[in-house]
């Protein structure tokens, strides 16, 4: 069965510092890969997605993620974090095609200090 691991439960960074959130997946084939963000009391907003092609994908709010097949990873990065980025970040994977469900990681809570 597919699984998603986000090894960092909680990360604190200073505003303006760079950020990398880790995501590893276990799957029989290359799945569709997503990052969602959840602000307190809010729903899940799509940050970016990878289906195929260029392994470096750009998303909203200045985020990017890099797919590395050899490491089964899809890490999320941002060069300079803003205080408004404080939220919970979820990595998710889905099967290609079909009506497939998403399998989510446990999430990483990002705290930004001023």
């Amino acid at each position: 069965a597919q699984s998603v691991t986000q090894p960092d439960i909680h990360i604190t960074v200073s505003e303006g510092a760079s950020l990398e959130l880790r995501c590893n997946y276990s799957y029989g084939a290359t799945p569709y890969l997503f990052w969602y963000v959840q602000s307190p009391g809010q729903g899940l907003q799509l940050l970016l997605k990878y289906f195929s092609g260029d392994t470096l994908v750009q998303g909203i709010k200045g985020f990017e993620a890099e797919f590395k097949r050899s490491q089964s990873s899809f890490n999320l990065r941002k060069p300079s974090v803003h205080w408004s980025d404080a939220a919970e970040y979820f990595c998710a994977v889905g099967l290609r095609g079909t009506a497939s469900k998403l399998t989510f990681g446990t999430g990483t809570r990002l705290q930004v200090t001023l």
Partner: protein
Amino acid sequence: EPEVTQTPSHQVTQMGQEVILRCVPISNHLYFYWYRQILGQKVEFLVSFYNNEISEKSEIFDDQFSVERPDGSNFTLKIRSTKLEDSAMYFCASRLVDTQYFGPGTRLTVL
């Protein structure tokens, strides 16, 4: 920009009562989903729905749960007899091609 909407935002109910959570998916989407997130835990898949029938369901989605698309716009999740452990945030999502878009969620509290 079109978005998924959910009502109510918060529902409080007594154990054993029936609840219906409502969702309006994005209008031209074809696939519909329910997920739940128990406080402090990860988002878990409940059920997917396509062409007016369930296409996949998880172990969580037992006989107490049902889904329906009663008209061309609404997608509902019914819990027949709520238990304390059903307390969670319930998210609806819809998809046209490959990306699921989520609603803001309904927080269900079972007392």
